């Protein structure tokens, strides 16, 4: 299942894109889009599957609710940190060790806003967005955070 959604409630002035998708993504492509002559700072968070002895990871979402929540977070962050653009891509499905899980790219005029906005989005994503990760080991499996 792939769900693509350009942000449906864009923050005035901020360019936003939110995707929840089984496809891998290309950080470079998004970073290039985030660059603009109004922004002097682009901060990127890339989350990948860390080798904690696991064989693979499965990511599941409540896609409609997750997109709506990400969209809210995106607008909150753009307002609060005065961001020029916000891009969020979260992958779904079976992922191997080293695979990309999530990409957050924000741009702003200055570095503090860009760092603050990117880190805020990640924390909110982890605590509010209905997405779950299950780690699969050779000897068993467990849902992360439960």
């Amino acid at each position, binding site marked *: 299942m792939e769900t693509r959604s350009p942000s449906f409630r864009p923050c005035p002035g901020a360019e936003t894109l939110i995707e929840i998708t089984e496809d891998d993504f290309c950080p470079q492509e998004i970073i290039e889009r985030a660059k603009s002559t109004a922004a002097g700072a682009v901060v990127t968070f890339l*989350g990948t599957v860390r080798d904690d002895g696991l064989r693979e990871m499965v*990511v*599941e*979402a*409540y896609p*409609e*609710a*997750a997109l*709506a929540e990400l969209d809210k977070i995106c607008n909150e962050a753009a307002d609060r940190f005065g961001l020029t653009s916000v891009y969020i891509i*979260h992958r779904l499905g079976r992922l191997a060790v080293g695979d990309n*899980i*999530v990409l957050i790219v924000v741009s702003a005029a200055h570095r503090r806003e860009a760092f603050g906005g990117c880190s805020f989005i*990640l924390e909110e*994503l*982890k*605590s*509010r*967005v*209905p*997405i*779950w*990760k*299950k780690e699969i080991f050779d000897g068993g499996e467990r*849902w*992360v*955070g*439960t």
Partner: protein
Amino acid sequence: MKIKVRAFASFREMLGSELELDLPDESSVQELLDALASLNPRFCSEAFDRSGLLKDYVLLMKNRKRLDRDSMNQALEDGDEVAVFPPVSGG
């Protein structure tokens, strides 16, 4: 009335990802949960404590809006979508 139930993560593994329950009109959220508990004993023991109260970690949404514990007696309407899931862990 028909209520669409969506379950995620560990609860999806117990209940299936999507089911439709046929409940008496004006059934409450609590009554929907009771019906789910009676469908699956593992969900019952994972989601409820011994006194029958929903455990704190279980999260609910109605039509994609979070429901808090004060809303358990809220009446549902035909076509409502209720989601039940454990704490999120994206990112």
